[in-house]
């Protein structure tokens, strides 16, 4: 293929449409929002760009900082849950027989064919008081109770008089589960890609030298697939940080995340400049996370295997 230096015309023609797309739908709106964040609300639809920092000052009030902090914490927790659950799944797919792999990867991706909103609503049916989790647990309770009755211990009510359904919905737990469920594949795929290309003989060598499976995982597999984990962490953490309809649908009164606050500013509160300032603060946090990743990746350069 020609180098773009030799044939600049081809290069420019080929890059025209993606560049135009990027400028029109990414750079321009982003700039508009950025400019808006330095404005003042004057009327119902009127915003004056005055160059004020008031919106940022307001966004840094303890009330909002607390929500920022909570969002980071929730997103972090969900990311860690994804990481812990993601490794075994990625391992299982990477070590499955070759003819199974496409189907397992497909199974991981199939939920994406259904709208995320519908999937989140479906979680309500799973977690609510009369939901599938509670149905399952109740079934087990019934079995255990039946067994106790059979043993002649039914009268003592050892596991309670009746099944008490768990409160799983409309709290932070439900929000976390929702985020984990929504972004789980984004963790598994980069992990899978890294584990898949990891030379099996590293693991065998570790076992051969006397290490157990846990030791092999933490001393050999994890350090050598850390790049995949890092990619997974970033692409789960960033959207999780901005999640708004998951806490909306699954969360309780104390489950407001920064995404909900921003959404409210643009919609019901109709305070676009303040929403813009909050959005940009969130983006700076995201940049911070990406810079951290670049730093860690840079320090480990030359370790790619």
């Amino acid at each position: 293929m020609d180098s773009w230096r030799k044939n600049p015309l081809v290069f420019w023609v080929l890059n025209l449409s993606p560049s135009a797309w990027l400028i029109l739908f990414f750079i321009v709106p982003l700039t508009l929002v950025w400019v808006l964040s330095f404005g003042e609300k004057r009327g119902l639809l009127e915003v004056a760009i005055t160059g004020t920092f008031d919106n940022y000052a307001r966004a840094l009030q303890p009330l909002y900082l607390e929500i920022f902090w909570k969002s980071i914490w929730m997103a972090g927790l969900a990311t860690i849950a994804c990481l812990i659950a993601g490794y075994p799944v990625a391992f299982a797919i990477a070590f499955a027989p070759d003819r199974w792999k496409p189907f397992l990867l497909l199974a991981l991706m199939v939920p994406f064919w259904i709208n995320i909103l519908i999937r989140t609503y479906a979680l309500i049916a799973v977690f609510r008081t009369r939901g599938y989790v509670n149905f399952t647990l109740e079934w087990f309770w019934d079995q255990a109770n039946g067994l106790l009755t059979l043993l002649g211990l039914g009268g003592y009510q050892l596991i309670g008089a009746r099944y008490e359904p768990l409160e799983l919905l409309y709290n932070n737990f439900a929000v976390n589960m929702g985020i984990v469920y929504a972004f789980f594949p984004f963790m598994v795929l980069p992990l899978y890609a890294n584990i898949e290309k990891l030379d099996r003989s590293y693991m065998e060598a570790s076992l051969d030298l006397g290490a157990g499976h846990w030791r092999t995982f933490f001393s050999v597999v994890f350090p050598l697939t850390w790049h995949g984990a890092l990619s997974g962490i970033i692409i789960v953490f960033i959207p999780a940080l901005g999640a708004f309809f998951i806490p909306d649908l699954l969360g309780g009164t104390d489950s407001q995340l920064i995404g909900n606050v921003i959404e409210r500013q643009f919609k019901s509160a109709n305070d676009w400049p303040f929403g813009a300032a909050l959005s940009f603060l969130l983006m700076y946090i995201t940049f911070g996370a990406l810079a951290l990743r670049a730093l860690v990746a840079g320090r480990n350069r030359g370790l790619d295997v």
Partner: protein
Amino acid sequence: MTDSPPIISVQGVSKRFGNVAAVDTVSLEIRQNEFFALLGPSGCGKTTLLRMLAGFETPSEGEILIDGQDMTDVPPNRRPVNMVFQSYAVFPHMSVFDNVAYGLRVTKTPPGDIAQRVQEALHMVQLSEQAERRPDQLSGGQRQRVALARALVKRPKVLLLDEPLSALDAKLREAMQLELVRLQTTVGITFVIVTHDQHEALSMANRIAVMESGRVQQVARPAELYEFPNSRFVADFIGKMNLFQGRVVERQGAEMTVDIEGLGRLVLPGQDKSAETRPVSEGQEVGVAVRPEKVKIHRDAMPAGPIVLRGQVREVAYYGDTSHVFLRLDSGQVISANLRNDSRTSDPSVKIGEDLWCSWEPQDTLILDR
């Protein structure tokens, strides 16, 4: 050495992947302090057998005993063997020192001992200077030494080597062959090496097992394997061989009279000891074989001897130390003979198209019944 008890005993071991038997009822005994080679073409099951010794594959049938202990339920990390992998598998995220120390750390060796043993092991493979280096700063040969030190520092009863030299260039490979033999004599550990390279096996091993499609064809010392192969496969796989079809006409003890297709009738004295026990009977079709370096070439007509044949030079291949001459015999068969270029002026000046005579001693003839 012959009387020492076997350190590894493989008893009727098979390994099937689906319907394919990668290893097919193999029985072997490897003795203490032996340098043992598993030799065969790719896909013959030698690596699978080695991996079963290490514990990475479980036999479908049969048992493996290491130092008298049944290894069936023993996982790789609890076996008294260590392995040098074909890819070396030197951990890229650890220094040379940490790589070698890894196997001691995971088994909770006291830290003081670790430092000392690692130093010893690195000294043994001449890598003391590189202890703090990272694997990506080492050459292929050095990485292999790390893999060796890492395995030997564990003081295993058996060291398993999976094609350890295949990734090295020819010169380095020769040097490493000598070094491995030196190491083996120094540490006095049984080495089991897997290789597809006959020269490697012949030059390094005390005994060699030749494998073909999952089965062991012959187990013997290198010289015995070369001079007394027990089958056409072994004869052909080890070194070069002129092979003819023949039929046993008469047999008296070890002495045989054989009709060789196109070459005539030949009486073979019973030089080959194993021939006495071979189940060769009169009238049986056999392979008649002779090594090219045992075939002599003469420019002048020879007095008729037991084996004297006339042929025309078809091709001459010059290898520096030897020249291989290919003669087409009057019967139409092609025979190859090696000429040693043992003097600078010994250029055979054999020309293509020239008529020559060749001969060999009857006792250098091999009878192969399978």
